[in-house]
């Protein structure tokens, strides 16, 4: 048996790097901090791979079932013997998988940023906060209990805030950072109350106890009911609100598109591959309870995922900022993962959706990070985010072109690339459990292929734009991560998830469902074909379509005005109609009332000025006798 105690170093190394760079970063050349951060992450990644190898292939499996292993544990706060908060590391299939995802993507982003961020003011700060983020995210997935998860959840939020507002001289970046923090914090209130309820019902924070399918936690909670749903359902729904906030589910998604104000490598790491899937991870973490004692909550998760994925895919079709297209695409894909959890049952083949969700999380991390880093290379070359400033770039950026094309084919679900396998499993799970959600996802599959290839053709094909200087390919340090992730995108679909990551830890077997797979590939190809006709050469078709479906087009272009609604509520209602009047009320009514009492007193005192002798003894005498009289009245006359 191997001792997994060392796993605590996987998050600790990045935080030490953060402290080291933060405290000494100004003393040496900025690029050194970049190397230090990268080196730290490399160590964490090596440890994670080693852990994954040991866990999956050596010791994780006991009698055919993957166990939950506590690698390291320390008690932080103790309330009672059963209720205490620990900090530690929990190893099970999903946490180990997440370790691999996070360290891989984070390492690639670290390497990539050596080129992308070169010469930026605040280079050392960038690497310091990147390390802080890696620490928080690793601590989040390794959490042994829901409270530890909440702690790191918030830390992830702060790192994200600091990275989005990295260019703090730019007002839009600062506003976006704040928006992301506040919207997710709003959701986190739900999370916190949910945690309190859950611990109240079950008497524990511990994941191992909570998610034991034969444990007491699962059995309780069905008892008391509120508004027709069990208390457990409410608790889980509140917790899900937290997850929906972080994972940008409709209608808490408004921060994600704005978060694109951050540096592009950050978008790749945080807003595509790792942090935004924290909500999915949270539901997966508590999946046993969701599935066994609150199926209604799980169903809601599925519908929220489905709606989000359709909503975001429609918007992605009309956006012109390449990063925003990718942001909406991320939302849509995370919607897929949520939906997959929503249509899953517990145990064996019933748990297909669960497995598919985790599978898609893995493959999506690879190809979406690739897309973002590719977008970074494009932006690096043409100094613009806007699709209308791009065209014909395949001649100038050959490597970026190839890797970007691979990513687009992967997300469109073209076999045998990884996206095909994972998306197919989700569609099968949906097909078997909920035909309505299946229909939505089927449609989204077509839309995805369409908007991705709209982007691809617009950027790499079509006419050359007027460039200030000929766009040049990114340096090798940026190309290496692209190539690495491209390879991962191609091959990660062959990882046997059905025997590694399942809802109950036991392996199961599924064959390919051709009845689902063939149509889904076809609709993807149709999407690509339409994009090819529309955008490979400039045509008038898109404009015509836009004017004939004017309402839909305008709605989509303006993201269905959700931002405007929020803005209206906060600025016009909360700030102008609540905050301001209350401030006035406080100043004039409450304070005014108190002042007018003082005024009356003053007036009275003018009249009885004669009593003012200036003699201290007299005041003291009056004061004391007054008190005594009052006390006397209280005690003897009122006699209560």
């Amino acid at each position, binding site marked *: 048996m191997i001792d997994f105690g060392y796993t605590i170093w996987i998050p600790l190394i990045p935080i030490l790097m953060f402290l080291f760079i933060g405290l000494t970063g100004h003393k040496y050349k900025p690029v050194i901090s970049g190397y230090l951060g990268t080196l730290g992450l490399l160590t964490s990644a090596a440890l994670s791979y080693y852990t994954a190898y040991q866990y999956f292939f050596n010791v994780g499996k006991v009698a055919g079932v993957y166990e939950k292993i506590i690698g390291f544990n320390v008690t*932080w*706060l*103790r*309330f009672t013997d059963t209720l205490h908060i620990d900090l530690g590391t929990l190893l099970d299939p999903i946490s180990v998988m997440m370790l691999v995802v996070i360290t891989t993507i984070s390492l690639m982003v670290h390497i990539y940023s050596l080129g992308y961020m070169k010469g930026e003011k605040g280079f050392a700060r960038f690497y310091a906060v990147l390390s802080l983020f890696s620490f928080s995210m690793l601590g989040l997935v390794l959490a042994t209990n829901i409270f530890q998860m*909440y*702690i*790191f959840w*918030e*830390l992830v939020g*702060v790192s994200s*805030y600091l990275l989005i*507002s990295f260019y*703090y*001289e730019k*007002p839009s970046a*600062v*506003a976006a950072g*704040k928006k992301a*923090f*506040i919207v997710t*914090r*709003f959701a*986190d*209130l739900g999370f*916190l*109350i949910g945690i*309190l*309820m859950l611990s*109240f019902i079950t008497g524990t924070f511990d994941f191992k106890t909570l998610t034991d399918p034969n444990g007491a936690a699962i059995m309780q909670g069905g008892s008391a009911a509120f508004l027709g749903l069990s208390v457990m359902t409410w608790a889980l729904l509140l917790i899900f609100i937290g997850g929906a906030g972080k994972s940008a589910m409709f209608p808490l998604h408004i921060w994600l598109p704005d978060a694109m104000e951050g540096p592009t490598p950050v978008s790749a790491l945080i807003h595509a591959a790792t942090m935004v899937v924290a909500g999915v991870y949270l539901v997966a973490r508590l999946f046993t309870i969701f599935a066994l004692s609150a199926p209604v909550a799980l169903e809601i998760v599925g519908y929220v995922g489905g709606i989000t994925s359709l909503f975001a895919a429609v918007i992605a079709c009309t956006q012109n900022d390449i990063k925003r297209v990718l942001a909406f695409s991320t939302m849509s894909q995370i919607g897929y993962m949520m939906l997959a959890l929503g249509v899953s049952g517990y145990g064996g083949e019933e748990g297909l959706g669960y497995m598919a969700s985790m599978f898609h999380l893995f493959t999506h991390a690879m190809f979406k990070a690739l897309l973002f880093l590719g977008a970074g290379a494009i932006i690096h070359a043409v100094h613009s985010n806007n699709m209308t400033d791009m065209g014909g770039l395949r001649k100038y950026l050959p490597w970026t072109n190839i890797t970007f094309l691979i990513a687009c084919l992967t997300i469109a679900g073209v076999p045998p690339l990884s996206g095909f396998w994972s998306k197919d499993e989700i569609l099968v799970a949906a097909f078997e459990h909920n035909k309505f959600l299946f229909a939505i996802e089927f449609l989204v599959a077509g839309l995805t292929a369409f908007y991705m290839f709209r982007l691809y053709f617009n950027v790499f094909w079509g006419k050359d734009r007027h460039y200030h200087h000929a766009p040049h390919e990114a340096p090798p340090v940026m190309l290496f991560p692209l190539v690495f992730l491209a390879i991962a995108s191609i091959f990660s679909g062959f990882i046997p998830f059905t025997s590694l990551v399942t809802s109950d830890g036991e392996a199961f077997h599924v064959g390919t469902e051709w009845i689902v797979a063939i149509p889904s590939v076809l609709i993807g190809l149709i999407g690509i074909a339409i994009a090819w006709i529309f955008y490979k050469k400039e045509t008038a078709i898109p404009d015509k379509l836009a004017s004939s479906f004017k309402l839909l087009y305008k709605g989509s272009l303006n993201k269905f005005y959700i931002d405007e609604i929020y803005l209206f509520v906060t600025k016009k209602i*909360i*700030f102008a109609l*609540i*905050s*301001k009047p*209350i*401030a006035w009320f*406080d100043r004039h009514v*409450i*304070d005014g009332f*108190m*002042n007018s009492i*003082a005024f009356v*007193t003053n007036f009275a005192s003018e009249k009885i000025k004669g009593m003012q002798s200036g003699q201290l003894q007299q005041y003291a005498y009056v004061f004391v006798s007054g*008190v*005594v009289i*009052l*006390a006397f009245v*209280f*005690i003897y006359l009122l006699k*209560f």
Partner: protein
Amino acid sequence: MLTGILIIFLFIVSLLLFALPNSKHIKTIALLGSLAAFGISIAMLFQFLNDCPCVLTFNPDILQVLGINFKLSIDGLSILLILLTTFLTPLIIFSSFENKREKPRAFYALILLMEMSLVGVFAASDVLLFYIFYELALIPIYFIIALWGGKDAKKITLKFFIYTLIGSLLMLVAILYVYSLTPGVHSFAFNSFYNVILTGKAQSWVFLAFFIAFAIKIPIFPFHTWQPDTYSTAPTQGSMLLAGIMLKMGLYGLIRFVLPLCPVAMKDWGFYAILLSIIGIIYSSLIAIKQNEMKRFIAYSSMAHVGLIAAGIFAGTFNSLEGSIIQMISHGINVFGLFFIYEIIVRRTNNGNISSLGGIASKAPIFAIFFMLILLGNIALPLTNSFVGEFLLMLGIFEYNAYLAFFAGFTIILGAVYMLWMYQRVAYGEVKPATENFHDLTKQEIIILIPIIIMIFWIGIYPSLFLKIAEPVVRNIISMTNIIPN
């Protein structure tokens, strides 16, 4: 023993400062005196930890008239608040070194006198002694604000004075009433008071009197209107004393008197008291959003945080009381930090208006980092001090009533809203004329900020020490609240 020495020592230093001629050494003497006081209280802490769980007492058997004892005793709650007092006072004194104050000797003597009274309040084991110190603390702060305050100082201090005096009078009446019921030979000792069992109706009146007295001090909505004016007109050191330490007297009083003396009234009225506190949290957070002057902003944000503490005390569960004690310490540290940040900004720009500031982060990056750390402490980020306190408070309030906990939770969101927005306008964005020449922190400022940052993370990362000290007191108080009269 040490407690008595501490009080007498502070009194002597204060008198000495009054007596000395004005010179540039005054500041140094005051600083050294307060540091020595901190040293004594650290010694007290060690003595306390060795003797745990018994309490340190000091009872020189003088003044035994009418059952009044000069009795001081230290339990976990007292020692924590005394440490807060003696920890913050040297920092407050040091933070004023850059300012040119008129009549420095009086200024520093009053600060030390204030420190003495506060230590007395937290150490007293006799109700009348508590009351005397409680009132005594009012006098130095009154003069500090009136003599060194800004615009309208006289008028505003008068308002502050009247407000608190009304509260004090009500409290005195309640104290005398309970005194008259003490069993055997009447006595003001805490223990005699705790032995009084009041009827339900009497409890309601005593509760009301104490509630108003402490609600004014804390302040709880709607007894708070003295606070923004007073904070904004007081010299920054005065605001630090008021918000950092003095308002803890009210919270301390709630725990010491209201919970043990009025358990039945707590059952009847506690809900409404929590409700008022929570209304205050949301109300003051919403107002804070709209404030332009930084000091008023800090006043309202402080009121929101303190409201949560008060709500936790009224909830009276084990977790909420533990949370309230740890949060009292954290709030003192954080609010000092915020006021000092304000002081630094005003020193450089002569301007405390949020709208005329901006772009400080690019001019003074180290300052911006410290500012951010203190801000994170204030919005209760995990691993900072207020997170521990606010989480325990939320947990306790949730145990009391889940709906109230939900509304109390708004402090988490609104706190982030107003704090981040303020930070955005002050530190980010374009450099404004006022911040054109903003230079980074000086060594002296860093020396003051570092202990604050250390405490923010110490309590945040390893709160067990503080919770362990507070635990016996909380258990004791809870056992007393379970006594129900027939």
